[in-house]
């Protein structure tokens, strides 16, 4: 079926009614959501205004682009980027649109096809579709020349918008099954990283583009103009050039994509509505390999509490989605910032300390990472000595990853900049910073613990945001202050005459300083942990 753009034009008996009902449902959900709190209302209005301003600017820019030789390349790329955005959006905000979730409509006596139609129309209501509409219209303005092109342009805008919306719906429906299973939710948490890391790459790409002009886009655009929904806009350009055959083919590609998406969506919706929820099915995992007790590399860990805690911490880095996401973000940003800056020639070798700093953050809120399972730890800590062993083991587990990683990043940055003489002092600074982060991290873990909600994307439970900020920012400032002696010596050796000959001393100096500060931090954190176990447990059990 091809989706009708206007709800009233459908003649199927129950459909117009259903379309109107679903659109009204969407509007009420939106209104009620905003009624809940003034903060949410303000946020919605602000984001709407921002979006409109952004859309207006884009529109102006696109209109100004009219007549530019490479206009079509940019326009096609822009539409493609929007389409990707539409495809990715439901993965990040599965609960963002409640009309999106057909499992909520399962109990109603509805057939899939009218429902698909109604939901498609309902999804055209909102800020996102409006922004997309304006961008598509602007794109057509930028490339349309002649009456025929304008006519095709109107068709292209409608087609493009419907493809975007249907794409989002199809992806969402396909993923609801995934999102209702444990594995799927784990994946969704991890997907937050894609943004964090992706932004760095986009930033890098834009900088390159800025230096070499729009012509750079042409090869990419040559492919994109055949991919829906960008092909609809490509068709407008082709008509302007007089290539009617090409234009027809491009339009057909978009129309076919729309039909395909709607069919796929209807299919997965039917499956969703007639088969049990993924969460009630047993996760059919193959019986894991028979391992007994400690095996593999775990055997190399020390015995007693230290090895036990290290093993658990390291397992959680890999298995717990929240912990894993935090680690991967830290590892990625700790690498990207110094290395990309070095690649662009703008970097300082001191950026290499970024890796140590980013990874040191993982020592913060150690007990919050345990969630309320911290009670199992609390039940076994009965003295300051136990608390010290627990904290030291967690710091050791962290060092097992951090120490080689920070060293590797520092060496890589140095190699890229070719400044080998500075390697010892930068490494020394990194180690001192890492030590200071571990020390302040251990102390704030005991003093300012807060919950990390396990569901969704938030990393702080409601009401504890202030606490989290105090812990992380206060801790980072203190860590910087703790490093001050090492930084002072570095500066002094660099500015004083003949000091360069002695900068190698900063490597052992920084290492010893970092280790000393860490031990001191653990010593101070241990009695606090031991005496505040119930308070820590109640702080990390919220949400």
């Amino acid at each position: 079926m091809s989706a009708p753009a206007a709800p009233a034009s459908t003649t199927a008996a129950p459909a117009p009614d259903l379309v109107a009902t679903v659109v009204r449902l969407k509007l009420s959900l939106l209104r009620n959501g905003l009624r809940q709190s003034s903060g949410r209302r303000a946020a919605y209005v602000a984001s709407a205004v921002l979006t409109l301003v952004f859309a207006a600017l884009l529109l102006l820019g696109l209109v100004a682009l009219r007549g530019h030789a490479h206009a079509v390349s940019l326009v096609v790329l822009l539409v493609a980027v929007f389409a990707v955005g539409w495809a990715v959006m439901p993965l990040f905000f599965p609960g963002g649109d409640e009309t999106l979730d057909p499992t909520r409509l399962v109990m109603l006596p509805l057939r899939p096809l009218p429902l698909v139609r109604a939901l498609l129309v309902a999804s055209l209501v909102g800020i996102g579709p409006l922004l997309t509409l304006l961008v598509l219209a602007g794109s057509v303005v930028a490339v349309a020349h002649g009456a025929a092109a304008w006519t095709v342009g109107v068709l292209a805008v409608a087609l493009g918008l419907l493809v975007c919306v249907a794409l989002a719906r199809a992806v969402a429906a396909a993923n609801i099954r995934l999102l209702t299973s444990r594995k799927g939710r784990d994946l969704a948490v991890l997907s937050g990283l894609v943004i964090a890391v992706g932004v760095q790459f986009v930033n890098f790409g834009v900088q390159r583009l800025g230096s070499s002009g729009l012509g750079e886009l042409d090869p990419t655009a040559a492919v994109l103009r055949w991919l829906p929904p960008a092909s609809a806009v490509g068709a407008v350009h082709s008509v302007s050039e007089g290539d009617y055959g090409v234009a027809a083919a491009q339009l057909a590609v978009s129309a076919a994509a729309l039909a395909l998406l709607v069919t796929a969506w209807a299919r997965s919706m039917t499956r969703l509505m007639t088969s049990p929820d993924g969460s009630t099915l047993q996760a059919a995992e193959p019986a894991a390999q028979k391992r007994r007790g400690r095996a593999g590399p775990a055997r190399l860990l020390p015995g007693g509490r230290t090895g036990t805690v290290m093993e658990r911490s390291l397992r959680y880095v890999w298995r717990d989605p929240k912990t894993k996401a935090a680690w991967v973000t830290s590892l990625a940003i700790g690498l990207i910032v110094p290395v990309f800056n070095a690649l662009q020639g703008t970097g300082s070798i001191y950026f290499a300390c970024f890796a140590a700093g980013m990874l040191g953050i993982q020592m913060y809120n150690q007990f919050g990472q345990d969630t309320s399972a911290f009670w199992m730890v609390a039940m076994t800590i009965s003295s300051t000595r136990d608390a010290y062993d627990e904290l030291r083991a967690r710091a050791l587990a962290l060092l097992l990853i951090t120490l080689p990683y920070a060293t590797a990043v520092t060496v890589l940055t140095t190699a890229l900049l070719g400044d080998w003489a500075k390697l010892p002092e930068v490494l020394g600074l990194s180690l001192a910073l890492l030590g200071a982060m571990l020390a302040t991290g251990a102390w704030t873990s005991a003093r300012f613990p807060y919950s990390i909600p396990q569901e969704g994307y938030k990393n702080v439970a409601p009401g504890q945001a202030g606490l989290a900020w105090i812990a992380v920012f206060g801790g980072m400032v203190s860590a910087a202050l703790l490093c001050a002696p090492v930084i002072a010596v570095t500066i002094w050796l660099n500015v004083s005459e003949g000091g360069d000959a002695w900068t190698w001393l900063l490597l052992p100096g920084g290492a010893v300083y970092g280790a000393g500060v860490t031990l001191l931090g653990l010593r101070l954190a241990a009695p606090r942990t031991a005496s505040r176990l119930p308070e820590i447990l109640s702080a990390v059990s919220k949400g």
Partner: protein
Amino acid sequence: MTSVRVRNLWKRFGQQVAVAGIDLDLPSGKFIGLVGPNGAGKTTTLSMVTGLLRPDQGSVEVVGHDVWRDPVEVKARIGVLPEGLRLFERLSGRELLSYSGRLRGLPGAEVDKRATQLLDVLDLAGAQHKLVVDYSTGMRKKIGLAAALLHNPEVLFLDEPFEGVDPVSAQIIRGVLERYTASGATVVFSSHVMELVESLCDWVAVMAAGRIRAHGTLEEVRGAAPSLQRAFLELVGAQGRDTGSDLDWLGGAGR
């Protein structure tokens, strides 16, 4: 012999008084039930007795040692299965037991031996390599019980151990607990299911609105009432609440 001695125990959460001055002596070597409706303060009391929640006032002694002043002696002698708190769910069942046992300082080989036996008895051997996050409620309670028993404690505190547990798992848990008390250890568990408490316990404390309403052997608490359920309803004053006269349309014969 008393295993747990509670004196003048208080806990407030803001305006609400959750536990309002409890005095209680629990005999050792018995299967003890702490019963009461939802919100009576059972979980709060058990959390304070086991050292997971700091009381506003009052003292708790377990096997002769103060919970707050002498945690070294107490924590080694008790096993706990709390309600509403997570486990380290990203470990498999076996890894969780191995972690828990080693954290308590038991030798590794002994932990592995006991874990294998507990997993077998609790019918979890088939799921021992599955992550706890994928366990059902009954399996979670069973692995939690295994972790609480691993270090062979003198007193076991279980908060709602049968809540949401299927009959087969419940029977297994019962069997393990009966074997455990038969050897002289003490089990203290909370529940709001009277039939269960009546069939399992030989000593009962009835709690309502943050206070102990009655305590003693099952016979003493039951008194002249035909069942613990009746005795309990009389104690908390919930008798004679009849819903029959309203809802007269309710019968399932259409709209």
